[in-house]
Structures are given as structure tokens and as C-alpha cells.
């Protein structure tokens, strides 16, 4: 792979999941070693053995998953970075450090509570802390950011863009690893596309469009989604799922307030919002209908005989990575009659049958590796997701809960999953879609709800989606303003 990054520019590194973007940058940052080839910084050869070497040359990196520890404070993290400066018995000069950091915050207009516990701060602040940690070292001229906007709300993203532009104006070079093509176009000067570990294209962004970039990323044109059949969901009978004035408190705090919506047959209801504003609680309430308790008020009705769920975090919630595909297949299907023996022994599982069904799913969704012996850990993100989809659909659910279905999945598989969802919708399945990708929501939903602070702050119908300022309106609602 060969390409170069110009000084003082914002350079975007784009590619699908598993294309090698993070790996490449981790090599640059000294966390991994290359097998062959050379790296050069400002004309000089560069062989980093550790992050310290990278920092010595002026390269800093903010990882996608922050290495911040919950109960400790941001100040503690900075102190840890400097730990080699002090001896074992010296007390750490906290007030001195704090002063330095406050000055830094002031200079870059990025205020932070340095003594607050990390777990009490928002994710946006976490990112700010990570960036400031890098800016602390004036010799750092190149900053690598790995998927920085994945966890930010539209407003925070705008502020973040301003900060990046300011850093560029101050002479820093920025490398942006991202899969958000819109941001690439609005922010970066040059770009490099990686596909399956190869550098496919590198150059300026002038005159490029999103479609161009997408095509370069996957190597072919995106398949089109199947057409939506028009049908009025209201005529299809009682709602599969409905919330009525549903509220839930947790230790005195409202986590959900007056939630009211329904999902009917043959429609996709989308829920937009910044993570942590109540989406998980809604999903949890549907999956584990709560018993009557003083913490619950309102009504939650579930009318679906069979339901499927694509969980928010498929690795954590949907799969047992060290178990075999057959056992993972059984998750959710363990009471299905087709997985049990016949007749008097029907309380026993029939593993031969189970393996048969698993094989079918692997084939139908083109999941690789196509083997019943490999643990799920060895499947890629996209294949895991396809497996989960296949497993959930085995039950022919009436209601499907899909949470962040495209997270960590490559574009090709996303297209396949989206097509599957539209197909299900057309055949009468009700789908409740929770996502942080606005594009995905706008593409798939018949109706779009917005949640903020445990409350539904807006609802948009599909015919409003092509209004020019729709994203701004949604963004406002995600931050708490906007029409109720």
C-alpha cells in the first residue's frame, strides 16, 4: 500500500469495516508492526516500536474506543500519562497539572471538568478529553482520529467540525478514519480509499460525490433497494406493539416519560436519537415486559405472536461467541417445535434437526465461513449480523425489533440486510428500527420518531423526508427542541 498525506490538510481514510483503516493507523501509531515497506515522516524514515516513538515524531491518535476508566477522573488519566516523571514516593502534583489543563482548555475553547469521574461525563466530553490529552504535547503535529463522530449528536458534530477546522488553521495535520461519506465531503481535503487491505485510490476530493466514494469503497455499484409497496398500515388490524403513556423511573429518575407510539403490520417505525436517551430502555421493556411496580406507569401492549430481535450490541446481547453456530442458532429458537424431537420425547432437543436448520441459514444468507464447527468468534461482523438476521427470521416473526442493524457491518452486507427488511415490511411484518444512522432511518422508515431524555420529542411521516431541512429538524428534536 502506497500513499502520502500532505501536511496541514485534513485527510480522510475511508473504507468498509475490515478494510484495514484502523490497522494501518495503528501501525503508524506504533501499536502494530508492519511486515514490510517503509514509513516516512517529513522525509525521514520512521520505525515506531511503541506509541512513545510515534509521539516523539509528532503523531498522536484518538482511538475509536476510548481507553478511559470509569471511576477515575480525567486528571487521573493525564497524571498517568506523565507518571514516568515522578518517583515512587513523590505525591502527584495534582494542582499543578490541573492548572495546566485548565489553561489548555481555555486556549482551544474546549472546557472540561477535569476532576469529574469519567463515568459521569458524556461521550462527547470523553472525546474532547482524548483530544486535549494529545494537544497537551505541542510537538504533536499530526492527529489521527478513528471514527470520531460515531458517538456524537448532529449539533456536537457541527461543533466538532469547527474544532477540526481550527486545528487545521493552527497548522496541524489531521487524518480522519471514517465511513461517513457526507462528513468526508464536507470536511476533508484529500482522501484515500482502502478495500480489503489494499489502497484502491488516493487523491483530492474536488469534484467527488458520495456515490463515487461509495463505489470506490465497495468496488461496484450499490444495489438498489426493493420498491416499497404502498399499503395503509392502519387498515391491517390491531397494533402489534403499542406504548400508551408509558413511563418508567429508576431510583427516582425518569428514564422513560409518556412514551406513546405503536407499530402495525407492514410498517417500519424508526426511532432516532443520541445513544443513551431511552432507546435501550424501550427495547428492554419490549423484550422483558415489566411487572407492575411503582416504577412503571402506563400501558405496554404486545400483540405479536412471534417476535424477533436484532440486538443493539450483537456480540454482547445476541451471540455467544465461543459457542458453535448450532447452539447460537438455538438462541431464541429453543422452544420452537421444529428443534425438538417428535412425539412423547418432545421435551428433548433434536440436535440433528437443529444443525440442519443452522446449515440452511448459513447457506441462505451466504454467511462465511460456512461451517458448523467454527465458533462465532471467528465470523466477521457482517457475517455475524447476517447470521443473527437469519436466525431471528427462522421464527417468521410478526414483529421485528432491529437495533443498529448496520453497526460494524460492511456496505455490501448492509445493503442485503436493508433489502431483507424492506422485503419483510412488504410481506406484512412490523418492524421497529432503532438506529443512530440518520441515512438508514430515512431510507427505511415509514414513520420516524425522535427520542430525547426519555421523551418522544418529534414524529415525522415519510412524505416529510424529502424536505431540505429535515435533518436539521431531526437534529433539533434529538437535542430536545423542536415540535413535540
Amino acid at each position, binding site marked *: 500500500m502506497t500513499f502520502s498525506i500532505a501536511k496541514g490538510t485534513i485527510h480522510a481514510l475511508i473504507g468498509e469495516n475490515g478494510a484495514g483503516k484502523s490497522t494501518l493507523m495503528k501501525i503508524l501509531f506504533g501499536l502494530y508492526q508492519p511486515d514490510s515497506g517503509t514509513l516516512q515522516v517529513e522525509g525521514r524514515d520512521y520505525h515506531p516500536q511503541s506509541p512513545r516513538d510515534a509521539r516523539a515524531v509528532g503523531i498522536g491518535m484518538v482511538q475509536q474506543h476510548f*481507553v478511559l476508566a*470509569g471511576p477515575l477522573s480525567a486528571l487521573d488519566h493525564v497524571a*498517568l500519562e506523565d507518571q514516568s516523571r515522578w518517583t515512587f514516593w513523590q505525591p502527584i502534583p495534582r494542582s499543578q497539572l490541573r492548572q495546566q489543563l485548565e489553561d489548555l482548555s481555555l486556549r482551544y475553547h474546549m472546557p472540561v471538568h477535569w476532576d469529574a469521574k469519567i463515568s459521569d461525563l458524556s461521550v462527547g466530553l470523553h472525546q474532547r478529553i482524548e483530544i486535549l490529552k494529545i494537544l497537551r504535547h505541542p510537538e504533536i503535529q499530526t492527529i489521527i482520529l478513528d471514527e470520531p463522530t460515531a458517538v456524537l449528536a448532529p449539533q456536537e458534530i457541527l461543533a466538532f467540525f469547527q474544532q477540526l477546522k481550527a486545528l487545521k488553521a493552527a497548522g496541524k495535520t489531521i487524518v480522519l478514519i471514517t465511513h461517513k461519506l457526507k462528513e468526508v465531503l464536507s470536511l476533508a481535503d484529500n482522501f484515500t480509499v482502502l478495500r480489503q487491505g489494499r489502497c484502491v485510490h488516493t487523491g483530492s476530493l474536488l469534484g467527488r460525490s458520495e456515490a463515487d466514494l461509495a463505489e470506490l469503497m465497495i468496488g461496484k455499484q450499490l444495489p438498489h433497494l426493493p420498491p416499497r409497496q404502498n399499503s395503509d398500515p392502519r387498515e391491517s388490524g390491531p397494533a402489534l406493539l403499542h406504548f400508551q403513556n408509558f413511563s418508567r423511573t429508576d431510583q427516582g429518575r425518569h428514564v422513560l416519560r409518556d412514551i406513546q407510539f405503536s407499530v402495525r403490520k407492514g410498517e417500519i417505525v424508526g426511532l432516532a436519537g443520541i445513544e443513551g436517551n431511552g432507546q435501550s430502555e424501550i427495547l428492554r421493556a419490549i423484550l422483558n415486559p415489566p411487572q407492575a411496580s411503582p416504577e412503571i406507569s402506563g400501558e405496554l401492549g404486545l400483540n405479536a405472536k412471534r417476535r424477533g430481535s436484532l440486538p443493539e450490541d450483537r456480540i454482547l446481547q445476541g451471540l455467544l461467541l465461543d459457542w458453535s453456530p448450532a447452539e447460537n442458532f438455538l438462541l431464541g429458537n429453543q422452544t420452537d417445535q421444529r428443534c425438538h424431537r417428535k412425539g412423547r420425547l418432545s421435551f428433548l432437543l433434536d440436535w440433528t434437526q437443529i444443525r440442519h436448520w443452522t446449515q440452511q441459514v448459513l447457506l441462505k444468507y451466504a454467511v462465511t465461513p460456512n461451517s458448523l464447527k467454527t465458533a462465532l468468534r471467528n465470523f466477521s461482523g457482517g457475517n455475524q449480523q447476517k447470521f443473527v438476521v437469519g436466525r431471528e427470521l427462522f421464527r417468521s416473526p410478526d414483529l421485528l425489533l432491529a437495533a443498529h442493524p448496520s453497526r460494524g457491518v460492511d456496505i455490501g452486507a448492509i445493503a442485503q440486510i436493508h433489502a431483507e427488511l424492506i422485503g419483510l415490511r412488504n410481506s406484512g411484518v412490523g418492524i421497529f428500527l432503532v438506529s443512530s444512522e440518520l441515512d438508514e432511518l430515512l431510507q427505511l422508515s415509514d414513520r420516524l420518531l425522535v427520542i430525547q431524555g426519555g421523551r418522544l420529542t418529534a414524529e415525522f411521516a415519510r412524505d416529510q423526508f424529502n424536505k431540505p431541512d429535515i435533518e436539521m429538524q431531526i437534529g433539533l428534536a434529538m437535542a430536545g427542541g423542536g415540535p413535540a
Partner: protein
Amino acid sequence: MTESLFITVWAFLISSLRLSTPLLWAVLAGLISERAGVIQIALEGLMLIGALVGATVATLTHSPELGFVMAAIAGATLAGLQGFFVLHLRADQIVTGTAINILAAGLAPFATKILFHTTGATPPLAQADRFVSAPAYFAILCLVLIWYAYHYTKLGLILQFAGEAPMALTVTGVRTRTVRWIALLCCGGLAGFGGGSLSLFLASAYSPNMTAGRGFMALGALIFGKWRPLPAACACLFFGMLDALQIRMQGSDLGVPVQFVQILPYLATIIALAGIFGQSSAPKALGKGDPSES
């Protein structure tokens, strides 16, 4: 009247402090290990070995100080074995800890039979070969040192990070595994001191199963104190008071069956654990030998 009451209370306090000494050592040991991210179920076994070695060396050399030091070394050695399994082989920490406990419980009678031809205890030590008060003072000194290091120096910071977010440590160039090794060895040494204080200070010999669950009570005190040095030490003192109470009540005629009094400390641990002081403050990386870092 008040004077004799004062004397009784004072004697009770002194007695409590004495009795909580082994527990204090164990709690400090557990604190360091668990804060670094290694679950420490083997405190019982580590203390037992310390008690055995301490008593054995003191019997053979007539020097309690040497016995005390050797007790710590023995504890550290056993902890080293634990470290080999837990840190090098990345084996399950609770399984390994349980095995270490069983090993210590088996080795002790094996050793006493070979060395002293007895059925599990070491011969009683003369007064001159035992401690009068040193281990208690030493334990308090260690408590103060650890408290200072934990809250104010970089040692404490690195320790906490090893247990909460090992990745953060790796990025700054400190190897988490090294930190955990050192923590484990220190833990073994401190637990060894605790065992030594049992056989050389509270009692006058090693007797079978003399730890009597103290290793687990120390864990209870640790959880009760949310894995922080001072609160955990206070919990130890509380258990020590219960122990002192239990001993006093055995002699008296309060109509309470002896056995009930004996199980008071164990009940107290259970009740303490059933409080709101649950697992939420446990170091986040506890028990997860994070494979992605060295």
C-alpha cells in the same frame, strides 16, 4: 464503677485490635491484588502457608522475626505459583485460587508430619520465640504506608488503572502484566505476614486450619470497604471486635449457646455483603485477564 467500665472497654479495644491484626494483613493483601485486577480467593491458603512457615522457622531458629520474614516469603512464593497460572497461562482466577487453597491445606499436614512427626500442628513456641505486639504495630504502619501510596503517589494510580482500565496503562507504556505480577507477589507477602501473625502472635504454634475462614472474611471486609484502604481497615476492626466479643461471651453465662457466638463473625460477613455495598464498586477489570494487552 466507671473506672472498671473504662478498663473493660479499653481491654476490649486492645483485644479487638489484636484479633483484627491477621485480618488487616489479609485485607491489605487482597486490596493490592484485586485493585490490580486479580481476584484473590486464595488468601486463605496464602495465610495458612505463612502461618505454617512462620511457626516452623521460629521453632527451628528460635527467632520470631526470622519466622515472620520467612512467612512472607512463603506467601509470596505461593502467590508466585498462582501468578504463573493466572497471569502467564491466563487460567480462570477463581478455579486457580481454590486449587491454591486446597494445596496449602494439604501441604501443611504433609510438612508437619515430615518435620515434626505430628498430626498437623507445630510444637508450641516459648514466650521468647513469639511476638508480644510487633505484628499489630507493623500492620498499622503498613496500612498507613499503603493508604498514602494509594491516594497520593503514582504507585496507587498505576495500581488503580491496572484494575479499572488496563488498556489505558498499555498506551502509556506500562505493562499491565508486570504491575499485576508485582501486586500478586506483594499480596502473597502481606498475606504471609498475616499468617505469621496468627501463629506467632495470636497463638503460639501453627494448628490445622487455624485461618478458620479469615481469608474469606477479609474479602468481605474489602467489599464492605469498597476496595479502599481505610474503610476496609475499619471493617477489619469491626470483625475483630466481633471476635473479641465472641471470646468474652464464651466464658460468660449469658445462656447463649457457644456455637452461636462462634458463628457471629461469619454471620456478620454475610449480613455485610447483603447490604447495599454490593459489587458495583469492584475494579472494572477484575478477573478479566485482558488478552489484548501484555
